[in-house]
């Protein structure tokens, strides 16, 4: 980072950088956490200037805005969970190795995704939230993690007594064109489909219940829409503890 580009944090926080220079600085920001942090603080500072400029609006504006929003459809949330990933890589997160910390992590991650998906798939979201709370309430929660580097990471929080689990995949590459990731449970050697895992920016969450005595859980690449039995290569698989 050159001192010159870093000096733009102030101008940028005030929207005083235009055109190509702005896009260039934004690319720099994506890679420079200390610059991004400074921009956040300077924006908060600029906000104080905005608050100091408070003025009385024309009263008719309120009704006009409230009428207009009734006709405006809200944007769906972005499903990027970048901050979560960043938190996961922080030195603190790396030191947290106990089961309790892992449970908290997956709960936070799941809730993060749940929050981002709100409004889009509300029923599904509610179901996932219910899964999470059931699993966390159960006394026998277990957390398994599998790190396959560039092929992705998988974290499973499960409770045998609640017969529920949540599978969180991170840094998962997109499936090849025309293919989907499908999740299977191994029930006495018989592979039972538990649904598709659809990554959004490398993250995917799947709540699974009713897997009984399943001995393992795995992810395979299947033709789009999934298959009746697993055919294509296994991306990830873990053995489930009894």
């Amino acid at each position: 980072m050159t001192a010159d580009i870093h000096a733009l944090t102030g101008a940028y926080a005030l929207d005083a950088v235009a055109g190509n220079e702005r896009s260039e600085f934004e690319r720099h920001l994506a890679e420079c956490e200390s610059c991004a942090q400074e921009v956040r603080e300077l924006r908060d500072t600029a906000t104080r200037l905005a608050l100091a400029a408070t003025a009385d609006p024309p009263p008719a504006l309120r009704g006009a805005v409230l009428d207009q929003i009734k006709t405006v459809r809200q944007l769906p949330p972005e499903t990027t969970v970048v901050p979560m990933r960043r938190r996961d890589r922080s030195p603190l997160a790396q030191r947290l190795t106990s089961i309790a910390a892992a449970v908290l992590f997956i709960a936070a991650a799941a809730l993060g995704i749940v929050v981002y998906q709100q409004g889009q798939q509300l029923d599904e979201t509610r179901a996932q939230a219910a899964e999470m709370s059931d699993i966390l309430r159960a006394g026998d929660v277990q957390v398994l993690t599998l790190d396959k580097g560039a092929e992705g990471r998988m974290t499973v929080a499960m409770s045998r007594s609640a017969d529920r689990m949540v599978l969180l995949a991170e840094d998962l590459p997109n499936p090849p064109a025309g293919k989907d990731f499908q999740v299977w449970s191994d029930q006495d050697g018989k592979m039972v489909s538990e649904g598709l895992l659809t990554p959004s920016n490398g993250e995917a969450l799947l709540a699974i219940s009713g897997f009984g005595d399943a001995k393992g859980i795995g992810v395979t690449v299947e033709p789009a829409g999934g298959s009746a039995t697993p055919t294509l290569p296994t991306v990830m698989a873990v053995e489930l503890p009894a």
Partner: protein
Amino acid sequence: MGDRVRRVREARTEPAVDVGAELMQRVARGDEAAFEQLYDLLIGPVFGLVRRIVRDPAQSEEVVQEVMVELWRSAARYAPEKGSATTWAMTLAHRRAVDRVRSAQAATDRDEAVGRRDIGRPFDEVAEQVTARLEQEQVRRCLRTLTELQRESVLLAYYGGRTYREVGELLDTPLGTIKTRLRDGLIRLRDCLGVA
């Protein structure tokens, strides 16, 4: 009646408007009552800011309405990890106001084929005047701790909606100096205001 007016004024001078993540979440879920609350919290500063930058009353109102509707439309895109909801809203309001004056400016420049950048834009208030009209004593006090050149640059950029290049031309100062001045000025302001 007199009492009520005074209370409203006092509420306005609170150092921070706290929107809160929970309110944003309700708005993101399409809760219109929550949006009314959000509107009431933010409309004063949004209107004041946009009006300062855009100047023209009719155009300011248009921009303010756009901003408030955009807050509703994109509420689900607000990410609490990236900063407070108030800053998110004010950043959006500032950006929209600046876009409006910059596109108006571009049109004027084209139409009149004039080189001078400040033609077609209302005359900028003297920095001192702007400072004196600020409602918040703390902000006013902290602005006074900046050097005159820092203060002028920050106010021209933020309330004037100027790019730092324009600020450089207006103040007849090299760009490198303006960049540093804006950054140092804001940092001093941040520290004085105790912004975390």
